């Protein structure tokens, strides 16, 4: 059975009757399971174009459904529902409601590039996954994913200072996602490091937390990048037909966000 027809045999689409006779024929029990007839009327004809308008999604139209992406996928091997080929099919068909069933796992792509390596049509499925995750968030179907929280925390530090500092990113991420820093495994790691921490490295780390590493003369680059990101965001919102959100103040200090705050934040 082709994968896109599997939805027909989901439990909610099956009908089995304990006792039913039609025109004198007994159709009771499991042997006579019926598949609910279904007519799709909720196509989203704009779906493919919208995904293609976001960074990474540009080549989605090239897909010819060979399945090399899913076959090579790292995440698919541990989560069979993670199926890039299927999602690309749904997007191209405009089957938004089917796509939304998997909305909460699409962000889990680990960017190992095995799909892009295997794809014979240069679809860049990894990019399509990122574009789709963006689309889901921008349309309000999902809250900001943990991965996106991390990406934004990281990017904001780069935009602000030109460089990042490991511990600062870690702290920022845990704060954004409201997780406690004192997790058993992180404590164990910190303990192992602290046990034999070389004085020089320790001092260097402490120093870089106090005076975060930065690129000299970064202010001009920072302004140029902020303007660029802002312009890109406006373009993406236009492509997705999203009304103008409340005006976003430009980052006034290092810690102010540069990217669009989502509903969940």
């Amino acid at each position, binding site marked *: 059975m082709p994968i896109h027809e599997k939805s027909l045999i989901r439990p909610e689409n099956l009908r089995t009757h304990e006792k039913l006779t039609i025109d004198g024929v007994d159709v009771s029990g499991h042997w006579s399971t019926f598949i609910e007839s279904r007519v799709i009327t909720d196509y989203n004809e704009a779906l493919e174009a919208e995904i293609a308008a976001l*960074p*990474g999604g540009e080549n989605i139209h090239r897909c010819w459904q060979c399945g090399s992406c899913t076959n090579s996928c*790292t*995440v698919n091997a*541990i*989560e069979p529902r993670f199926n890039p080929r299927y999602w690309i099919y749904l997007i191209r068909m405009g089957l938004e409601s089917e796509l939304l069933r998997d909305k909460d796992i699409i962000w*889990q792509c*680990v*960017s*190992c*590039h*095995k799909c*892009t*390596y295997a794809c014979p049509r240069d679809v860049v499925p990894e*990019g399509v996954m*990122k574009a789709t995750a963006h689309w889901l968030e921008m349309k309000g179907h999902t809250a900001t*994913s*943990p*991965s996106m929280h*991390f*990406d*934004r925390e*990281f*990017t904001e530090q*780069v935009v602000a200072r*030109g*460089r*990042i*500092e*490991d*511990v600062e990113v*870690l702290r920022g*991420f*845990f704060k954004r996602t409201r997780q406690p820093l004192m997790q*058993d*495994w992180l404590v*164990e*790691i910190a303990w*192992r*490091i602290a046990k*034999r*921490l*070389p004085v020089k*490295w320790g001092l*260097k*780390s402490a120093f*870089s937390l106090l005076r975060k*590493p930065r*690129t*000299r*003369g*970064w202010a*001009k*680059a920072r*302004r*140029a*990048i902020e303007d*660029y*990101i802002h312009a890109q965001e406006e373009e993406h919102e236009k492509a997705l037909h999203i009304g103008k959100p409340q005006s976003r103040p430009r980052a006034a200090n290092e810690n102010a966000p540069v*990217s669009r705050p989502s509903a969940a934040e």
Partner: protein
Amino acid sequence: MSEKANKTKKYDTVGYYPGCALEGSGNGYDVSTRAVAKELGLRLKDVQNWNCCGAMEVKNVDPKLQTYLSARVLSNAVHLDRMNVVMAPCNGCYHNLKKAEYDLKHDAQSREVVGELSRKAGHKAYEAGQAETIHALDWIKEAIGEEGLRERTKGKLAGLKVANYYGCMYVRPRHIFPEKDQGPGSESTSKPHFMDDLLAAAGAENVEFPLKTACCGGAHTLSDSDTSTRLVLNILQAAEAAGADVIATECPTCHTGLEMHQVRAEKRFGKKTSVKIMYFTQLLGLALGIGPRRLGIHTNISESMDLVIDKCLT
């Protein structure tokens, strides 16, 4: 032969781009790379006033912004340092500089964005072809070579069983590495072997390890920890099953990921693995007779110092 000699000389002095990770959690990779360079008589010239390449995160906010960040690093190397070779030991940095090179060569839009941002930021835009980006593996392989290492190390790593782990960013996607898969002598994207070659030259025994280019889940090491732990555990268990004492790494994200999730797998899933994890530069340093503390081996979370003592590698 003369071409080979020229190529070798070309890498004697290279622009060095450590990147953010090597300044922080990947400190052991940085100190061991510098120590090995010194011992081998190779000169590393730090790229002046560098910035983050964008790592694996910035591209998810905007891929072309990542191209600009990487291009700025290359621009500094070319215009401030007058270097035409940039060596990046971190897989993420290496990958991004390579990707910037590819995009600037093939994509007009990328050239436009990089040109515009460079102009506004007040520096010369990097143009494709001005510099060559290489990995630490290319650097030692070309500048010293296996023969050179064999002479200098005298098989010091004999008896050490190594699983070589290359990760994703060193080989994928293929198109950004035009010099790979070019037949004998070149690196392979499906079965990379440069690290195997170098460590074998130093006397180590490379075990048959099928997960050389498997993914450690580094991109989601904190944001999807359970997935990362499962992927890492798979790698650690495969290395142990292959009989490895140590997994050699050449990427700070992979290295830290393997170490962190080794601890997490034990704490959260009750799966203990005891294989050690060391940067390949730490192993080469030991083979060259450099002291383990100078190579930062005592800072490895996987407590690889025990192995060094066990195997009398000091």
